[in-house]
């Protein structure tokens, strides 16, 4: 029986980054599939890093014609292969905000057949992004996304960052937001993300401020695969 992870969240919250990192890590231990369900943004999608996924042995399912510089809002019939019996892990990288989350709603009957312990629906939060900047806006977005995705979020991910200008204090801001969300909804915090260096810095803050472990969860170190800095733009285009 496969384990399933669904990445939900605002535009630019880091869903694809986390999905790519987790998929690459899981592929080292067994079968792994990544379903790119983003049909609303032709740029910034996990399919952009098909090379990294292929090298790691991750099976990638992308929307037809994605990264071919044209946009057609359609999903591959191969998505259903993700629900076929098998072993390993499946990741669903969903488009941003509630508009992006619409695409996964149609698979509700398939998700309902899974044992609850096999389905992880993660809500990725970066309070440095404009749309989910604080508790109020993040909870409003959570409600909208849960509505259209027809899925119940099972965990929050603190992915506070400011790209190349990230400092450990950003994770403290993220901590405050996921703490409030978790307290208000009863949904646990799945984990806290960042590069190893940022996580190490955050650990000092955790000790110093005696932060509550319940709202930190696992520390999930990531390496930056997605973010397109100015230099990457110049060499690879949009």
């Amino acid at each position: 029986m496969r384990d399933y992870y669904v990445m939900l969240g605002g535009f630019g919250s880091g869903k694809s980054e986390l999905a790519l990192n987790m998929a690459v890590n899981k592929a080292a231990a067994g079968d792994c599939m990544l379903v790119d369900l983003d049909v609303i943004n032709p740029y910034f999608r996990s399919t952009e890093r098909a090379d990294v996924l292929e090298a790691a042995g991750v099976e990638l399912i992308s929307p037809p014609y994605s990264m071919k510089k044209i946009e057609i809002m359609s999903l591959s019939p191969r998505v259903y292969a993700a629900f076929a019996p098998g072993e390993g892990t499946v990741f669903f990288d969903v488009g941003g905000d509630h508009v992006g989350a619409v695409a996964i709603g149609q698979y509700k009957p398939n998700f309902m057949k899974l044992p609850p312990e096999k389905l992880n629906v993660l809500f990725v939060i970066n309070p440095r992004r404009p749309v989910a900047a604080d508790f109020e806006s993040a909870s409003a977005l959570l409600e909208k996304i849960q509505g259209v995705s027809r899925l119940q979020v099972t965990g929050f991910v603190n992915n506070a960052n400011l790209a190349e200008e990230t400092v450990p204090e950003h994770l403290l801001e993220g901590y405050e937001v996921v703490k409030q969300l978790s307290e208000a909804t009863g949904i646990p915090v799945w984990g806290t993300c960042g590069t190893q260096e940022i996580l190490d810095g955050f650990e000092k803050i955790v000790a110093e401020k005696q932060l509550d472990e319940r709202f930190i969860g696992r520390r999930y170190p990531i390496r930056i695969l997605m973010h397109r800095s100015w230099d990457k733009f110049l060499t690879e285009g949009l």
Partner: protein
Amino acid sequence: MAKKLMKGCEAIAEAAIQAGCRYFFGYPITPQNDIPEYMSLRLPQVGGCFLQAESELAAINMVYGAAGAGARVMTSSSSPGISLKQEGISTAAAAELPCVVVNMMRGGPGLGNIQASQGDYFQATKGGGHGDYHVIVYAPSSIQEAVGMMAKAFDVADEYRIPVMILADGLIGQMMEPVDMDQVGEVHLREKPWAATGYVPGGKKPRAVINSLYIETEDLDVLVSRLEARYEVIRQKEPMIETYKTEGAEYILCAYGTVARVCKAAVRILEEKGVKVGLVRPITLWPFPYDKVREAIAQESVKEALTVEVSSGQMVEDIRLAVNGIKPVQFMGKGGSRIPSAEEIAERIMEMRRA
């Protein structure tokens, strides 16, 4: 306010709202869709109005209407969509209506592609639509700079009663960078006694008429002369340019927008090789900063200038006009969407040096 991780389109939309823009009319096209998307979310929160029109033509004419009523109003599009808006822009210029139009340029001609490009320089600066008119054109080279331009763009539009264009490209629109949203600049709202806000018979305010049709030659002459006099003031007062390490330089690079950012990296590469190269970056493309460009290139130390564009060569004509044959001006670039690397630009300068 702390820095936020913003996509260029989002940052420009938010900056426009902070600059007092309360009306946005647009029609989707990549790579600027994040502007209307953001506006659709934010404008209702600030008591404004977002409307997705049925076409680019409808959108620009809604802008005409809102501007005529004295509102701070904006539309945005990308190259093919901006072409469709040109009739409306010409009409707004004739009717002396202040508004802001954002063009996130993509590859052309025709439908082209959805990568970044600079092929709309001629369209933006030399008319675009029909008739004797100009729009003020700002060309940001980073998201932060674009944010800092928005208040000025709306203010200048109101001051001169002229459409203003922000000419950026898909890179600025789609790139994500940490941005300080406090740098929008000072906002100056002004009275608009000319606006058509409702006529009260017997009231003090005369009837406001927004019009661009003048059948009698003498009448049209009055309008065109008034516009031209205003354009002359703008040519004197509004040119903006950034010069970077131009003093005593051997070669001068000329570029605007994102390409200027690449050129700065090339300047630094060449500096390490002991070659003194400077950069002139026009920030306003109309009015074009002819004097400052000439000043930088006419220096005795300068051997040649090199204009770099992601086009088949458009701004280079204004650079040559500025230099007026005093020094040779070469061109590097290609139509479509191929952005040269800093190394390629540096290599070209080295070639010019060897020649």
